[in-house]
């Protein structure tokens, strides 16, 4: 037993030593990303190949699955590990701005990007977007009865057969904030209450919406374009609609990239942000599984993909959404989710 014990002790000490050792100095940039890992990692790998700067990508889970990265960023703000925050939507970046986690950076590569999708004070820059779309099960809904507006979620023909993700989290929360911003408190509240009154179901996440519409448990749902695209790639029987083309428009959800205050690798961080904001990156994100929508006009997209010009865009003040969300999360949305039973 003694030799075995000695070996175990030695191995344990070696492991402890390895555990505690900090990395040897190397050019690196630490990117906290709430963009889905399968979309973000190829971009990070390409940056690494192009610049030789190692990208330490820290991806996030869906917000309903864990206390996520945003909380880590907030807790680390006195001495952050992260250099860059790459968010799948601008609201998270707005929240971090309000909490003093970010510092402004206006990248030279942002030229050409519409300014309306970025923070007016320069704390985050919007690029490559998703859209909030309706998806319906083709086996349950014909072309003639397909929805064309988010108000169809309240329609009798979809009673007890419609779903959305929890509006306290993710892009659904951004959508709720956008509705309150665009429609006003009364009409937005009526919409959400109407959804529940029509037997609508609140699910845990956008991917759950995608899964359950695809299986036919629900006929109609609202989710993001990347969820819809993944379902189409898997051959699921779903149809996709960019809602309210004739009305208030479709909500565009741009990616947002931000520089962390007191970041440990400032030069590499700026290089990474510059890289993300290039037209080539938008093209890559459009061509990948995410099928994201370039915000910059003229960026090439695959043939069958929708461009920004083809969408009626919901007019939203992206810079104000974080404040709107903060207000409604603790108030109406919280109470609404309680009523939904989720």
């Amino acid at each position, binding site marked *: *037993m003694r030799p075995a*014990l000695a070996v175990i002790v030695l191995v344990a000490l070696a*492991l*402890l030593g390895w*555990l*505690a*050792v*900090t*990395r040897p100095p190397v050019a690196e940039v630490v990117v906290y990303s709430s963009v*889905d*890992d399968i979309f973000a990692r190829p971009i990070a790998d390409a940056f690494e190949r192009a610049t030789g700067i190692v990208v*330490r*990508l*820290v*991806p*996030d*889970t*869906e*917000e*309903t*699955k*864990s*206390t996520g990265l*945003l*909380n*880590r960023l*907030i*807790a*680390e*703000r*006195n*001495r*952050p*590990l*992260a250099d860059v925050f790459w968010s799948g939507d601008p609201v998270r970046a707005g929240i971090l701005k309000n*909490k003093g986690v970010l510092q402004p950076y206006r990248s030279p590569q942002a030229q050409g990007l519409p300014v309306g999708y970025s923070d007016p004070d320069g704390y985050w820059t919007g690029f490559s977007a998703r859209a909030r779309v309706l998806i319906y099960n083709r086996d349950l809904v014909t072309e003639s009865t397909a929805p064309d507006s988010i108000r169809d979620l309240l329609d009798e023909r979809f009673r007890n057969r419609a779903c959305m993700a*929890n509006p*306290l*989290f993710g892009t659904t929360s951004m959508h709720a904030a956008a509705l309150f911003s665009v429609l006003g408190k009364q009409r937005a509240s009526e919409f959400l209450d109407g959804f529940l009154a029509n037997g609508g*179901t609140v699910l*845990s996440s*956008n*991917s759950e919406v995608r*899964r*359950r519409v695809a*299986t*036919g*448990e629900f006929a109609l749902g609202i989710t993001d374009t*990347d*969820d819809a695209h*993944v379902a189409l*790639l898997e051959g699921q029987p779903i149809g996709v609609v960019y809602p309210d083309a004739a009305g208030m428009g479709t909500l565009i959800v741009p990616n947002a990239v931000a520089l962390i205050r007191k970041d440990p690798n400032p030069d590499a961080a700026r290089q990474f942000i510059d890289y993300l904001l290039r037209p080539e990156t938008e093209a890559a994100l459009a061509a990948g*599984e*995410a099928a994201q929508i370039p915000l910059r006009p003229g960026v090439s997209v695959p043939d069958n993909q929708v461009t920004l010009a083809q969408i009626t865009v919901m007019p939203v003040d992206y810079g104000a959404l974080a404040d709107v969300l903060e207000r409604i*999360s*603790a108030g109406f949305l*919280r109470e609404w989710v*309680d009523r939904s*039973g*989720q």
Partner: protein
Amino acid sequence: MITALPLEQPGRWRTVGLMLIVLVAMSPAVPLLSQVPGMTPEILTGTFGSALINSLKIATMVALVGLFVGWPAGVLAACYEFCGRRVLLAAASLPLLVPSILWAIGWSALLPGGRTMEIPPLAGCVVVFATAAVPLVLIVTYLAARGLSGSQIDAARLAGGERCVVQLVSRHAVVPASIAAGLGAVMTLSDPGPAQIFGLRSGAAEILISFSALYDFSLAARQCLALTAVALVVATPLALFGGPRIARGMLARQVHSMHPLREPAMAGVTSVVLVVIILVGVILPLSGLIRPLADGQALMRAWPVVRRTAGDTVLYASGAGAFAIALGFLLALIIGRQERLRVVALGVILAVFALPPAMMALGFVYLGADAPAWADPVLRSRLSVCLVSGFRFLPVAAMIGMWSLGSASSSWAMVAGLHGVPMGTYLRRVLWPFLLPSALLGWMLIGLLATADIGTVLLLHPPGAGSLPLAIFTVMANAPESLVAALCMIYLAFAALLVAGIWTVAGRQRG
């Protein structure tokens, strides 16, 4: 010179030691707990109150299912030998590795049309959580049962045959099994996953909302404290019942340990029980999880993820297990045979166990951020993940330690004291070899549990050092389901091999 005698004597050092260890284990949560300006009873009313009630219902039912399935299964598995017993035990342990939400997704995928909404939410949550609670109780029962001596089993067999043997072993193991069931129940209090899948509002989900939707750490901390207080109320009777009985000392004269018997009829029953547990708890949800796995391409695509994360996964599991066992066994040594201390310790650690992992992990992040850079090797490294995970599972380790130490004879330390054997020599030459098999199995068990704790890894891992379960959760939102299925399959296959290997080694160790 300090001899081994104080180990069998009361002393103030025990209370001090207990307090110190609990404080150390709780210390990561201090930065967040200190943000709580004041607790008011109102926090227990309204939405959070009703959510807590749901959580308590789930916890109670999970404890009952875990106990009444895991306990007899563990008894039978300890008593009867048959071909493939260790393989079945290893397979039955697998759910401990898997974050509960994956099992929930697996179950929901099995339903026709994925009609999760048609399952009563409470039943769905209980089934998913019980999938992990049953193996926890089974393993603990098995370990406890193996602590009986061969002569005790022989005496029972002579007195009344196999029925008497099963009764004896069941009675011997009921306290550790109950406490394991209690642990399994407490674990459900801090896990929001299944409740979200099945649409049930739970206390843990409310806390997650406070963290991840409202970013209100103060509210979340208050809710965590309220959850802990409720857990303390539930844990107290368990501690009062289990504390004094957690281990009856084995007479040192009886050193022939129990060996499972090859008895065809009972072996048949045992294998059927284990197979049913594996079928319901592992194969069915697993089949739902990996159903999308269509071809080898997904496996090829999964391989880079596995290669990138395998080392850190093993490291975090091993490290968490090692820290937990070291601290847990030290706590057990400090408590000794003092019944009152045992009751207090059990109650406190069960209540602390109810704290959501995010409390400890985020608190550690705060500590790391406020500390100087020279502290980074401890506060901001892979070590941090192992430390915080180890602290989280200290209650499991302490219970295994208490049970294990309780089955050591008090005479060993007394005769060592009489002969002037120094404390260190006694611990090294006598006690540690005796405890080693339990420590190894406890290390394995806690490593399994820690692997499934993605929340801690997400919040604490150094950039670029994530684990495989975390990678599964970060890709699953929009990765093709076949890729997620492939990652799950690789993860489980590797873990199953590891578990099987450890069961085999542990079995040989015991002889």
